[in-house]
């Protein structure tokens, strides 16, 4: 089936995505970038440029380079917004015969929809090249506040570009779709979209049916964005340098360019670090010689600089809530969109207002295009084709030596699935093992939920660690768990079928996950202690075995020393001091190594005997002894 392209046609940047194997995927453009500047230009040679190439000649060809066309699409020339924007835009605009707008590029006048179409055409061509298929259909996004005429113009732009526009989708709805938030009926979602040049707030209501989304509030500022943040940092750098050196850099174009780059970099770095260095050597020079700019900007200072913008955005959110007759507590989910929302101070401000974190795990520059692709997938039937498979909500495992929960199938594993592991016995001549099936994230068996138990007996008597017992976990497509254990020597097996184990209630799963989180540190310590005890046990056991088999070849003095260390270890082994157990185990291990070396030396002096083959292929994890 032909693919439907999801397009986020943005004011400064655009992005495209498509559904592949049931998942939305961003398509890189011809230049290898995941976003394309929404800029169109006509060069002196009458060559049309779209995207990054148009942007690269914008400074020297401002009159024939059209940017921010989205601000004009579907509007009337007399609109207040258009009259305001007209002063800021470097290219010429005029009123069209029908009261709309026309922009001049080269000698020709174009309707804004035509310019948008040029951007869409590039996005379409690049996507076709990338996926190797012809694209004829698309879902294009637009802000929630777009009126009928603006939506119609967006659709027309698509049609001019050779696309059958299946839907003009609201940007906030697209973002909510990407986070899968439109499934819960009656849910109110607030989308906080802080882009490069615009700030939008939208409140969505998932009405009667899931996937039916109604916009119940819009607000924002069409001239508030990340660029303001950059400008603030630039001004600060210029001011600081002036204070320090008495030189004004604001008139020096070359220095300004370097300051701008440093400001952008500093802003990005401060999203992850608490302090950044702004280092511009040879920024300028005077009669005394070259001057260097070196400043440190802390996250706190930066937050202080941009405080007014963040506060303004929060005020706009509050106003939008008020218009929709809602309070922050009425909002179930918040979605953060736009590159600027990577700023920790913004995330913090949103959290303070709502008392909960906003959804931000998906790249905020790509979340809208991905939502458009998801909508396209739903319309194209891609979603129906995808076989929905579930994942295990919690880990599944068995209890092993020292009451440890050994996980065989980790949580979030998609089923049907089969996992097999080989275990062995924990005691000498152990003829039966108990398989205790567990569900949960805690490392100690007793802290998890027991799903079932069974006993495999009839194992031939053998030293511990020798028998090989294959334990297999199988979850079928209905979520039914089958656990089987098989003694590889005799072929004897036993199994248990556990129905309904996977499908726990959401609350139960959350409770178990939370408990695991709370006890993480304690559990880790407990597990380490058990492991230390097991190690001590194993060491003592292996010595006793060696001593029994070849004790006559070991120096008596060494044997005495080993026994002393064993006695010391046994004294602390059953207590809970992990450091003591580790240190005594280490002491014992060292003396055993000496004894081992002595044994090898004496054996090699004698005629080498035929070596006994040791069948120790089994896994480290051993069964606890059946009581």
């Amino acid at each position, binding site marked *: 089936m032909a693919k439907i392209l999801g397009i986020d046609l943005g004011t400064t940047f655009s992005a495209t995505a498509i559904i592949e*194997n049931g998942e939305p995927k961003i398509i890189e453009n011809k*230049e*290898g970038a995941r976003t394309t500047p929404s800029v169109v230009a006509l*060069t*002196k040679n009458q060559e049309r*440029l779209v995207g*990054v*190439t*148009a942007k*690269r*000649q914008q*400074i*020297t*060809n401002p009159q024939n380079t059209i940017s921010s066309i989205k601000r004009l699409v579907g509007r009337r020339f007399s609109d207040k917004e258009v009259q305001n924007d007209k002063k800021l835009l470097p290219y010429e605009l005029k009123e069209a015969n029908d009261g709309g707008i026309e922009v001049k590029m080269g000698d020709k006048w174009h309707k804004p929809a035509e310019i948008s179409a040029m951007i869409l055409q590039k996005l379409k061509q690049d996507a076709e090249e990338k996926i190797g298929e012809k694209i004829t259909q698309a879902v294009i996004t637009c802000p929630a506040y777009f009126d009928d005429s603006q939506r119609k113009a967006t659709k027309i732009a698509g049609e001019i570009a050779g696309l059958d526009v299946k839907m003009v989708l609201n940007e906030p709805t697209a973002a909510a779709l990407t986070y899968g938030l439109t499934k819960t009926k009656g849910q109110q979602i607030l989308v906080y979209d802080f882009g490069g040049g615009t700030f939008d707030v939208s409140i969505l209501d998932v009405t009667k049916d899931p996937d039916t989304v109604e916009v119940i509030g819009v607000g924002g500022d069409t001239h508030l964005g990340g660029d303001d943040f950059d400008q603030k940092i630039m001004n600060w750098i210029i001011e600081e340098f002036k204070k320090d050196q008495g030189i004004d850099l604001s008139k020096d*174009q*070359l220095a300004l*360019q370097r300051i701008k780059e440093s400001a952008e970099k500093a802003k990005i770095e401060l999203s992850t670090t608490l302090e950044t260095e702004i280092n*511009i*050597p*040879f920024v300028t*020079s005077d009669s005394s010689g*070259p001057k260097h700019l070196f400043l440190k900007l802390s996250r706190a200072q930066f937050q202080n600089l941009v405080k007014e913008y963040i506060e303004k955005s929060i005020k706009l959110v509050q106003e939008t809530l008020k218009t929709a007759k809602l309070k922050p507590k009425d909002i179930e989910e918040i979605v953060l969109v736009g590159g600027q929302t990577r700023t920790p101070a913004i995330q913090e401000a949103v959290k303070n207002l709502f008392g909960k974190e906003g959804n931000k795990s998906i790249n905020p520059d790509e979340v809208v295009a991905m939502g458009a692709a998801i909508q396209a997938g739903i319309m194209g039937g891609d979603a129906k084709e995808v*076989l929905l498979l579930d994942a295990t909500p919690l880990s599944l495992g068995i209890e092993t030596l020292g009451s440890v929960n050994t996980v065989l199938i980790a949580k979030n594993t998609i089923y049907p699935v089969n996992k097999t592991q080989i275990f062995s016995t924990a005691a000498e001549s152990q003829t039966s093992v108990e398989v205790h099936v567990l569900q949960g994230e805690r490392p100690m068996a007793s802290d998890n939920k027991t799903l079932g138990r069974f006993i495999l007996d009839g194992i031939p008597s053998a030293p511990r660690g020798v028998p090989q017992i294959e334990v297999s976990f199988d979850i079928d497509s209905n979520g039914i768990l089958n656990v089987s254990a098989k003694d590889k020597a005799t072929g004897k097996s036993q199994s248990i079928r556990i129905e309904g184990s996977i499908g726990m209630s959401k609350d139960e799963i959350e409770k178990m996950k939370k408990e695991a989180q709370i006890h993480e540190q304690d559990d880790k310590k407990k597990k380490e202690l058990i492991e230390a005890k097991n190690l001590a046990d194993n060491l003592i056991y292996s010595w006793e075995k060696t001593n029994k088999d070849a004790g006559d070849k070991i120096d008596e003095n060494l044997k005495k020393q080993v026994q002393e260390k064993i006695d010391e270890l046994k004294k602390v082994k059953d207590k809970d001091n992990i450091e003591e157990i580790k240190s005594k185990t280490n002491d014992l291990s060292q003396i055993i190594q000496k004894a081992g070396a002595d044994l090898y030396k004496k054996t090699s002096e004698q005629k080498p005997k035929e070596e006994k083959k040791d069948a120790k292929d089994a896994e480290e994890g051993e069964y606890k002894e059946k009581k």
Partner: protein
Amino acid sequence: MRCMNDKKDKEKDKEQDKENKEQEYLENWKRERASFLNYKKQEAERVSELMKFANQGLILDILDILDNIYIAEKKLPKDLEKNEWVKGILNIKNQILEFLKNQRVEQIDCLKKDFDPNFHESVEMAESDSKSGTIIKEFKKGYILNSKVIRPARVKIAK
């Protein structure tokens, strides 16, 4: 007799249904298997592409440092040009250039060439004896990594 025939027909239909279902399941399973194998192939391609440009971010950061070395070199007072100590410092620049070469990073040659937005970014325009659109000054060098422009050269062009 008719009743018998009806029963037979029904059984035949049932059999046919079963066969159709079997075919459908087998087909779906094959499709799923194929799509998994295709996905694996795509992932392998994606990873190899990723590897090709995995160093891009790091290289871009090093280029920023190199830019400053170029600026320092340009501002070097005449009387220091022959200074051995300065020469040693400037050799660090050559070391970085050698490193970039080994990483398959190429410099974009631009002076006196026609402006091409695929490789250059124009930030200034000035009257000049050169043909309109010719690059007359380079403010910042541009670079190509594995045939992809990772940073355009920032230039001044003739009006």
